């Protein structure tokens, strides 16, 4: 580990680091709580206790869940945090997303982004993580990402419930003339056991809201939990099985227009000219306008029906200019390779001296391999869309989005309105995966609404527009080298990873005034911070100058690094003639959390026991977003085509707040990763992406889906995430299983470029 001095200096250089400049002066502000945004426009007869709770005299209890519900279940589990401490049943509450407000900052997302391995709980690491939390609040980013919602909400939403409960008790104590300490709460009532009297929260709410909340409240112990830790039916389930219009694409407003966009498919390319004369003659078409945005150049068709807008957009004759980016994949790979060759990488954790170890290594002890992962589209099930209305000096945006703060930043920038004249209405999201943090789809909608004389306009992208435009998961190249010792275990590993910087891209798009120089830990996440003990171990990251916009994609840097690092570990195990599971057991011997996972994986999957020749198993392990995950994939050869037959997942998130939902997330993450590993890529030709719909960018289907067995452990002592951690290890586990099956080592994704899968 580097010295403390080095680490302290480095913290001002991390990817988010730009951001980390705020540490020095942010602390004072951090201590001032943000105002409760629910006070504004609160109806008569309703009281609010803090940014998370409203209680009305008629006993309606509303919990604000300020994180996007995009399938991951945060809506239910976050509400459960409040309900548990407030002493109300989940059935008694309504859930709202609430307004965009600094009060709902996400400190955990940045906190987990601090450049330390999650298993490093040293004082220095903790201090820096805390500082990053301050930064998060200072910037007041309300966003859903980094598998951080529960880690972020765990303290503050339980505290919100507990302080409201205590003020309700205080109000009841005054009314009943007893001490608050003698009262208890249950199912939305304050009860005086002695007199048998009780008051509902509704009866107390207005008085209670006038009482100063207690400075310190005691949170329940885990043993006292009635809701948390137990499987809860999802609160959004009934609406979703009955087809309710809850998604952004379902927004319906009086007098609403419909629009679509067509942007230059070459990233960064201009629009030379367009001719809309034919389109304007078509039924229902109102207007065709040019769009000249930071995020793309192109045009929008405004019509009275989405399909008419699509059809008219096809009839617009447009001439695109070339973009500045790479022409094809060969050029992209060349740029990635030359970035590494040029040197000047960054390292965030360096153990020993791998180069020195390589210098005198016998040739037969050296192992080298090079891996590639392509650009990927998120392909959320709900195509990108947003609805905007600019009327009477107020901008309203209805959008399925992961970052209301971002809309509060770009809305004023585009319209010149004050931020408090911009209202963000976050709908349910038909998938997010990182794509809906991005500002482009709301930026375009706001620009279009500026042309519709106060009428609301819903802007829907075609699937082709979605898949053929980034920001994408970046392509990445990894070059690995290792020296094996006489016992077959590695004595030295060195990796060089080149990829365009997601952090620089996101900061550049959202807050272009912030500097983005310096290392980006996202480039090496999953390579430098894994719990292997190797005497000489260093990963160098390189920010590759590929100009294609890149974004967070479910598990971000882990999504490619885990494939590369865990494939290489498998190669080393085979080169050292050690069983791949046993190999990991030896190298992770310092981490009981990891060993317990490997033990359970071995038992569940029957690892190492003979299976018939048409089947084989592969293993991989990744700690990401605070959750430790080991996975075994079993493949079967069906007449020359690979079937992914079974997946075993053992995960340790420290503590499980809802086992039903956590398991669903593990399953979801694995299937998402399998889809990418087997078949997905965005390739480029003539400077533009080649893929455009599920015909050439498909995902796993029902008939291809494996049986998935999930087991949860709770040993790590640190509350980890759920949405992303199952995605990274499934990709190398699959590649490793294919090697075990037929000896074919595939080092480039997608795998189907080199081997057939069942259709």
């Amino acid at each position, binding site marked *: 580990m580097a010295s403390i001095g080095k680490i302290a200096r480095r913290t001002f250089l991390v990817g988010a680091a730009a951001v980390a400049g705020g540490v020095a002066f942010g602390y004072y502000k951090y201590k001032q709580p943000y105002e409760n945004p629910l006070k504004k426009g609160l109806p008569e007869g309703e009281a609010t206790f803090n940014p998370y709770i409203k209680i009305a005299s008629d006993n309606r209890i509303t919990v604000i869940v300020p994180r996007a519900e995009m399938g991951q279940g945060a809506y239910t589990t976050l509400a459960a945090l409040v309900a548990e401490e407030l002493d109300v049943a989940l059935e008694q509450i309504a859930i709202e997303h609430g307004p965009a407000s600094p009060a709902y900052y996400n400190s955990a997302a940045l906190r987990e982004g601090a450049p330390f391995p999650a298993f490093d709980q040293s004082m220095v690491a903790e201090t820096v993580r805390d500082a990053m939390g301050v930064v998060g609040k200072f910037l007041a980013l309300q966003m859903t990402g980094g598998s951080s919602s529960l880690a972020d909400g765990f303290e503050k939403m339980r505290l919100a419930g507990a302080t409201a409960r205590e003020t309700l008790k205080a109000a009841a104590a005054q009314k009943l003339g007893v001490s608050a300490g003698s009262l208890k709460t249950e199912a939305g009532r304050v009860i005086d056991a002695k007199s048998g009297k009780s008051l509902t929260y509704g009866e107390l709410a207005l008085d209670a809201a006038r009482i100063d909340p207690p400075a310190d409240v005691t949170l329940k112990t885990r043993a006292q939990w009635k809701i948390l830790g137990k499987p809860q039916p*999802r609160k959004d389930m009934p609406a979703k099985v009955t*087809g309710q219009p809850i998604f952004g694409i379902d927004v319906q407003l009086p007098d609403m227009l419909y629009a679509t966009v067509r942007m230059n498919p070459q990233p960064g390319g201009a629009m030379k000219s367009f001719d809309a004369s034919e389109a304007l003659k078509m039924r229902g078409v109102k207007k065709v306008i040019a769009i000249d945005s930071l995020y793309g150049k192109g045009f929008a068709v405004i019509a009275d029906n989405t399909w008419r807008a699509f059809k008219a957009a096809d009839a617009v004759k447009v001439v695109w200019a070339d973009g500045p980016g790479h022409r094809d994949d060969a050029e992209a790979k060349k740029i990635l390779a030359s970035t590494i060759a040029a040197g000047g990488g960054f390292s965030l954790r360096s153990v020993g001296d791998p180069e020195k170890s390589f210098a005198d290594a016998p040739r037969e002890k050296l192992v080298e391999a090079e891996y590639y992962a392509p650009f990927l589209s998120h392909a959320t099930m709900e195509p990108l869309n947003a609805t905007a209305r600019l009327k009477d000096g107020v901008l309203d945006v209805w959008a399925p989005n992961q970052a209301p703060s971002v809309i509060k930043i770009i809305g004023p920038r585009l319209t010149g309105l004050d931020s408090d004249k911009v209202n963000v209405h976050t709908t*349910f999201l038909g*998938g997010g995966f990182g794509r809906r943090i991005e500002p482009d789809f709301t930026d375009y909608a706001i620009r279009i609404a500026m042309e519709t004389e106060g009428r609301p306009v819903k802007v829907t992208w075609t699937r082709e527009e979605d898949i053929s435009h980034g920001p994408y998961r970046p392509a990445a190249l990894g070059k690995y080298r290792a020296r094996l010792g006489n016992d077959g275990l590695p004595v030295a590993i060195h990796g060089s990873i080149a990829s365009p910087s997601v952090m620089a891209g996101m900061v550049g798009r959202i807050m272009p005034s912030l500097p983005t120089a310096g290392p980006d830990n996202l480039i090496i996440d999953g390579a430098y911070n894994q719990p292997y003990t190797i005497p000489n171990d260093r990963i160098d990251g390189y920010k590759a100058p590929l100009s294609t916009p890149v974004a967070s994609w479910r598990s971000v840097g882990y999504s490619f690094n885990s494939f590369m690092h865990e494939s290489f570990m498998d190669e080393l195990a085979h080169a050292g003639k050690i069983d791949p599971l046993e190999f990991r057991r030896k190298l992770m011997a310092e981490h009981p959390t990891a060993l317990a996972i490997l033990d359970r994986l071995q038992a569940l999957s029957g690892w190492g026991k003979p299976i018939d020749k048409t089947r084989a198993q592969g293993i991989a392990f990744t700690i990401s977003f605070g959750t430790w995950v080991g996975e075994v994939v079993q493949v079967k050869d069906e007449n020359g085509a690979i079937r992914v037959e079974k997946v075993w997942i053992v995960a340790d998130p420290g503590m499980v707040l809802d086992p039903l939902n956590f398991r669903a997330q593990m399953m979801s993450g694995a299937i998402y990763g399998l889809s990418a590993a087997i078949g997905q890529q965005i390739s480029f030709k003539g400077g533009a992406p080649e893929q455009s719909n*599920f015909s050439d960018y498909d995902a*796993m*289907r*029902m008939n291809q889906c494996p049986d998935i067995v999930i087991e949860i452990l709770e040993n790590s002592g640190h509350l980890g995430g759920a949405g992303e951690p199952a995605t990274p290890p499934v990709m190398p586990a699959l590649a490793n299983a294919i090697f075990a099956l037929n000896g074919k080592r595939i080092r480039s994704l997608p795998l189907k470029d080199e081997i057939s899968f069942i259709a």
Partner: protein
Amino acid sequence: MKLQVNGKVHELDIEPDMPLLWALRDELNIKGPKFGCGAGLCGACTVIIDGQATRSCQTAVGDVKSNIRTIDGLAAPDALHRVQQAWLDEQVVQCGYCQAGQIMSAVALLETNPTPSDKDIDDAMSGNLCRCGTYPRIRAAIKRAAGQQTGA
């Protein structure tokens, strides 16, 4: 033209080549069928016509002569359809965007084949994409609904 949706007849003045999906969503404000791909590849827009699971994005509205069943009309006023109930019982849904189409495909399957095998489920459901990866629970829910139907 006339269009019958969930038993109710609507009068429309639209182009006959408009995809049924957009007639339902943008003209009739029936939002259950979802736009996913516009090319018949993902199944999010699935409705039932003459007992067949049909991709409404690939069906010209002028070609539809029969009643169209969408998820919006699936439940009885006082009770969910048994397939919806099975979906609830198995806690199938995550983001939920594809699920209206999944449920309609499952309903069409069970109406023609009350006790589908795994292979039958694969064949009927593989046109319906889910990016959240809920397939194992969809399969369980179909089997649960089938069990209720046969009294098993």
